Each structure stands twice: as C-alpha cells, then as structure tokens.
C-alpha cells in the first residue's frame, strides 16, 4: 500500500503543476497584482514594485519564480495585510480543518446510517420521511439555515429560560480569553458543525441510498442470501461495505472542496478560516494570497482522493493496490 501511495503522490504532482499553472495564468489575467498600489501617491512605487515582483518578465518566467517561492517556503507577502502569506494560510487552515473534520465525521456516520436504513426499508414511511428531509436539507441555504439555528438554539433558549449566557455560542471557536479543547470550545463548535453536517447528510444520504440499493440488488447479495447468511450480516458485511466505495468517492471530493467552500458558514459564525480568507483576499484583489490559497485547495483535493483510493482496499477485498 505504501508503494501505491507513493506512486499516486508522484502521479499527482504533474496534475498539481498543471493546475497551478492554469490558476496562475487565470488569476493574473483577472487581477492586477499592483491594484492596491495604483492608489498610492508615490509615482515611483509602481515601477519599484513591478521590478521587485518580476512583473516585467514573461508569464512563464513569473510562474517559475512564483513556483520556486512556493517550493522553498517563500510564499510572498500579502498586499492587504503586509503579512507572510504562508502564515496567513496556515492560521486560516486550522479552524477550517476543525470544521471539516467534525462536520465530515458526523455527516459520514449519519449519512451512512440513513443510507442503509432507507435502502433496506425502501418505500417505507421512514424512507419517505428521510427522503423528504434530505430534500429539505439540500434546499436549505447555509446563510439562512445558520441564522435559524442561532435563533432556535442560542438566542431563544437564553431569552425564554432567562439564562445569563446562551447554551450554545456562535461567534468564533472560543470565547475571548479561552483556548484549547474544553467545554467553551464545544459550545462554540456545535452550531457551525451542525449547519455543515445537516447540509452534507442531506446530499450524501441520497447518494448512499442509491449506492446501497445497487448493492442490495447485486448477484453476490442474492447468493449470500441463498446460502442462508443472516440478513444483518448480508446487509452490513456484504451490501453496505461494497456500497461504501462509491460513497467514499463523493465524500472525499466534497470534503476536499470544503477546505475552500465554507465561506458562508465561516462568515456567519465569525470563524477566521479559509473561506473568509478567500473572501477578504478576493475583495482586496490580493493575488499573492489567492494563488497559494487555490493551490492549497487543489492539493487538498488530491490528498482527499488519495485517502479515498486507499480506503477502497480496506473496504473491498477485490481491490488490490499496486
């Protein structure tokens, strides 16, 4: 498996390189790296920065310079904050990683359960209810749903019960002055994770249900049943396990995209993650942050797919990793 993983990583490198070049060209075509400086009253500043940043060179040359910086750890300086881009992205990645980890973990568990239940009890009342709920979940816009959760689970309980503090917090991941993994952190985490989880469960459960129905109607399941394997064992060990492979592919892709796709959730819950960093950088036209940001998300997609591929072997004994 190690050889396979190393080979996959090596195969991924050209993909990341091509993606980075396309991103570089697209971002440079869209944004002016000196946009902010064009408001400066210093007439020499544009020329100085053009030379310093190598903007007078050809695009391939600029790309190679940028790539060299990325590889050597010199990711550049944000024009918005004046800070080191690597530190900016690193500090934004951590809160997002926490949200993605908890959200994906809970969503996977719940979606897997809902998928199996709905497929096994297809067209039952429970299946219909879960199907309806999943469509509602898919239709819920995060910006609205997040505010509804805040109102229902934080503001109203505090007002109705006369509490001094809300039972759940929704500003950031910690109260001022606190840090670490404690009750305060958990009280901050519930609402954003719940917002994320419900949205993910809604779509994943639909996919998981379809995948599980496919597995249940397959020959090996019929054979297992004909051989008298207990129903529970057929569902869990044969059908569910096999249906998880395509399910995991979807989970891996979605999880990777979440690294950059939590703009709304992070905005509502005031979490300084990758989504907010992207939004702030986009509005400021800060190409020096946007480019590495996109590269990090592209790498996240590759890594998550690799994890999904590796997990196939654990789930399906027919898959051999070479």
């Amino acid at each position, binding site marked *: 498996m190690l050889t396979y993983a190393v080979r996959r990583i090596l195969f991924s490198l050209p993909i990341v390189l091509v993606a980075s070049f396309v991103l570089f060209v697209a971002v440079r075509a869209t944004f002016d790296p000196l946009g902010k400086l064009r408001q400066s009253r210093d007439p020499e500043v544009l020329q100085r920065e053009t030379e310093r940043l190598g903007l007078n060179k050809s695009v391939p040359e600029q790309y190679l310079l940028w790539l060299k910086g990325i590889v050597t750890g010199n990711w550049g300086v944000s024009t918005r904050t004046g800070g080191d881009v690597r530190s900016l992205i690193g500090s934004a990645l951590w809160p997002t990683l926490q949200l993605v980890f908890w959200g994906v973990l809970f969503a996977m568990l719940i979606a897997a359960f809902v998928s199996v239940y709905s497929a096994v009890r297809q067209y039952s009342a429970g299946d219909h209810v879960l199907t309806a709920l999943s469509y509602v979940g898919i239709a819920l816009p995060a910006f609205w749903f997040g505010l509804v959760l805040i109102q229902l689970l934080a*503001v109203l309980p505090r007002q109705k019960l006369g509490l001094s503090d809300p039972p759940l917090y929704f500003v950031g991941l910690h109260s001022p002055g606190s840090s670490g993994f404690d009750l305060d952190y958990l009280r901050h985490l519930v609402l954003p994770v719940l917002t994320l989880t419900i949205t993910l469960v809604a779509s994943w459960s639909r996919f998981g249900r379809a995948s599980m129905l496919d597995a249940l109607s397959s020959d090996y399941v019929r054979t297992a049943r004909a051989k008298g394997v207990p129903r529970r064992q057929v569902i869990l060990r044969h059908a569910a396990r096999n249906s998880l492979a395509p399910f995991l592919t979807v989970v891996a892709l979605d999880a990777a995209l979440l690294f950059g796709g939590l703009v709304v959730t992070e905005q509502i819950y005031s979490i*300084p993650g990758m989504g907010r960093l992207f939004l702030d950088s986009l509005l400021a036209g800060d190409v020096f942050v946007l480019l590495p940001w996109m590269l990090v998300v592209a790498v996240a997609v590759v890594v998550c797919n690799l994890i999904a591929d590796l997990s196939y072997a654990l789930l399906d004994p027919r898959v051999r990793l070479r």
Partner: protein
Amino acid sequence: MSRHPRRVRRTLALVASAALLALVTACSNSSAGTGGGNGGGDPVAVRQGGAIVIGAEAEPDCADWLGTCAGSIWGSYTMKEATVPVAFVVRKDGDHWVPKASDLLAGEPTTQATGGTQTITYKINPAAVWSDGTPISAEDFKYTALQVRDGKDIFDKTGYDKIASIATPDPKTVVLSLKEPYAGWQQLFSSGYGVLPAHLLAGKNRGALLKDGYTWSGGPWLIESWKRGTSVTLVPNPKYWGAKPKLDKVTFQFIADTAAAFQALKSGQVDALYPTPQLDALSQIAAGIPNTKSEVDAQTGNLEAIWLNNARFPFDSQAVRQALAYSIDRKAVVNRLFGSIGVKQPAQSFFTPILDTYGDAAFGEYELDLDKVESLMTGDGWTKNGSGIWAKGGKPAAFAVETLAGNKRRDLTLQILQAQLAKAGFTMTVHNTTPADLFGKTAPNGDFQAGLYTLIDTFPDPTLSASFASSSIPSEANGFSGINFGRVNIAGLDPVLAEMDRELDPAKRIEASKKADQLLADAVPAVPMDALPNVLLWSTKLGGPIAINPSEGPFWNLNEWGLAK
C-alpha cells in the same frame, strides 16, 4: 467600515454613510444617548472592573496608522484611538462639533501667520508618558511629522506637505513652521495620525514593526492581543496620565455578518454594536432589541452622493446635471431608507452635518420638478425619442452608475432612482464593482459616468479642494494623486476653495465656504443624496456616558465605560 484615502481628512466610504443638515437624534428602547458625544446621554453609574465584548464589523489589515491602514475606520476604533495620543480631540460645544486641545498638550497651541507663512507652537503636557515610562516629547512630534511629510506610501500628506521646518527648543516644546497659512492646522497630529513614539520607531521599518499591532501606548489602553480574524483585546495602560479606564478588559470581536452580530447582541455574546446602517440592521433597530439601549445620530460626517463625471457624456453639460437633480425626489429616497428610524431629510450641501456652520443648504433648491427638467433639457437641445427618453445628436440620455457590489441599501437606492429617472426621461443602469477597481482604476482614470459612494469627514474642518479643485483632477502631472474623480472644473471655484484652505479668520472662512456651497449647487457637479445616520447599540448592563462622537466614533470615551452598578 473601510475607507478610501482622501486628502483633507475627508474620506470615501466603501460601505456607507451620508449627510443630514438637520440634527436628528432618535432613541429607542428603555433609554438612549443623545448624540451628544461629549458625555451625552444619561450617564449610568458604573463599577470598577469587569470585561466587555464589543462587536466589530471589520478588521484592520494592519496597524501602521501612517500607511494605507490609516484608512481603516475599525482600526481606528479598536486600536488607534485607544493607544495613539493626539493634539486635538473633537468635542461638542453647544450644537457644534469643534476641535479642542487634548490632555497631551499643556494648553491650547499658539499660532501666528506672518509674511505668508504660519508658525504653530505646541507645549506638551509634562505628565504625558508612553506606556514604557518614556516621556512623550517634541522628538515624537518631529518624527511623526517628518515621516508623513517625507515618507513613502503615506496615506495622506495633507497639511504635512506644507511643513517647512520643525524645531524642538526643549523636550516639551514643538515649533512647527508652515510654508503657507493652513486653516486646517488643528488636524496636524490629531485625528489622522496622532503622535507616534520616536524612541521605538525611528530608524526602523515602521510598516513591518506595526503590521501585526504593537505593545506601546500613549493612550488609556494597551493592546493586549490581536488575534487575526478573531479579536483585539485592550487592557488599561497603567502609565496613562489621564482618567484611567473603569473596565479591566475590552475585547473587540470581529463579526462581519450583520445578522449574526445582532443575534450576538441579543444573546449576550457581545455587549455593544456600532453597525453600518444597512437595511437589515435598520429593520432590527426599528423592531427593538430586548435589554438594549440605542442611539441614532444624524449629525454625522457622512455624505452619500451620486458623483458625476463632468467630463463625460451626458454630464459634460451643466443643464443635464441640473435636470438630473430636478428629476430625483431625494426626500422620498431618504424616507424609504431611513424613515423607520426617524431620519427623513436629504443632504442639501457638500458640507456634512458636522460642518453645518459652513454650508448654506444651497442644494435645497433642487426638488422633484419635471417641468424644470423639460425646460432645461429642451433648452440644451435635447428631444424625447419614441421611448420617452431624452436624446441629442442620436445619443440617448443613458448612463451607468458604479456601485460597490453587495451593499443592499445602495441597491435599493439605485432601484428607486431608476424608477424616478425613467419618469424624467433618463435611462440609468447599475454597474457593480469592487473598491479596488472603482477607487484604484475606474475613478482615477475617469472611466465612468456616475458613481454612488460616500465621503466621510473625520475632523470638523471645512475643505472641499480635494474633491472639487481642478488641480485635484487625477492626471500625470500630479501622479494621478488627486481625487477630483468627477473632473469638476467650475469657473471661479478654485480661488474660493483655496481661500477656504488658507484663511485663518473663522468668519471669513465661513463666508468663503458658503460661497463655494452656492457655486457647487449652481453647477451640480454631483448630487448629494441620502442621509445615513450613525447607530450605536449597547446592552443595559453597560453604564457610563455612552454616546456617538461623529468624528471619533462611539468608543472615544471607552475609558469611561463600565459595568452598570
């Protein structure tokens, strides 16, 4: 609220604000401030100690208050005002906001104009010290002045570019010599930049040192921490020589989403908010928030206007600009936007409400009058085409308005205007843009027909030369540094604006400014639009004199805030 560089301490707001001529103060809930700002409102007795959290809707990009981050209004509220000493503060005197010497100085500075130059002498308060115990000295004034005058990438050099020399005869005396009289001299070392510590910054890379905050202070507070994207925490400066803070700690928590910020106030996660009056915020305020006091103050330094490009068709014609002003029912717009919180009057001058003594409400003559539109347009050679739209030489009276995407209040403003202008025979389209594009490229290059954005006066000093003097039109000659984006060039206006900037006699200055107000109203280089009041909300658990200061914001006296007894 982020801001755009503008000389003379006027600012183009990227979010929102506007002007009103009349002072309108509306209060809600159990009690409220009065818009006094000078200890206004009903002071509530407070106890010593405790901590509060204030919701901040924007985060500064850095803490270099001389560079581009000087334009961050929330940087000013959260850190600069709390830590950087200033020569003049703005306080209310009767009905007007005026500069007053701060406790950094031993008394009112003396100034003298002789032979076409001006000299200002500052005496520094002997008790004034930085947080490390070093006395605040004349060298600090000198360092700050020369950094601004001679430095690169400085936010705004207005006034400092007139400095001929700066002498420090003793450690507590500063003598500033200006090349020419500067009527706005009280702005120097005041709201814009204050005074920075030379012993910590001189000879070093200021931008790099200050980009993530700093540990020194010459104000009532120290910055305990700045967690990017999360919060800024202030604690009392034990070396501050003035009134010590009542609270042990103040945290500004960054909450960009307005709806979430209001929920945070309702749930007690934050204790105060100073929201930009967007539509959703206004509806929440109108509905009332339990256990919260509020102040709505329309005597602001804000002016939202439709800025016209006077060099581009169709606004290269004065008759068309005047016709446009007569096509708009500005009262209806303001009432729709802010009527729910008691603000109903449109701006009638380019002088903002905190400068109302200088303006003459000259724009009051422009009210909806379609007959006058007809007369002006036909007199200028326009006829209506088959669609009822004015046309001249085969070109219709159609124009695009640049606006910043995502501002719902401005979207509504433009929707109302579209309907009103269509009735008057104009076609208006909306072009959404970003601050970087609008103020970095489109406006300086004159590549626009009209734009809807806001000016903010951060000091009660009247000057309009940056916006309307012909020398401020961005050009190669001035390195595209002017911000007369509308290419305004009105006959007779430049000398009047220059007089306003030079005249040290207040009465003569008022006379000149009223003349400028009338010239501008006659030529309609832009249309002053809606009123955008300042709004402050705070929990009933807070006490102290809490009120908005339109120049310094709501946290000007944070050291007097506390937990109610």
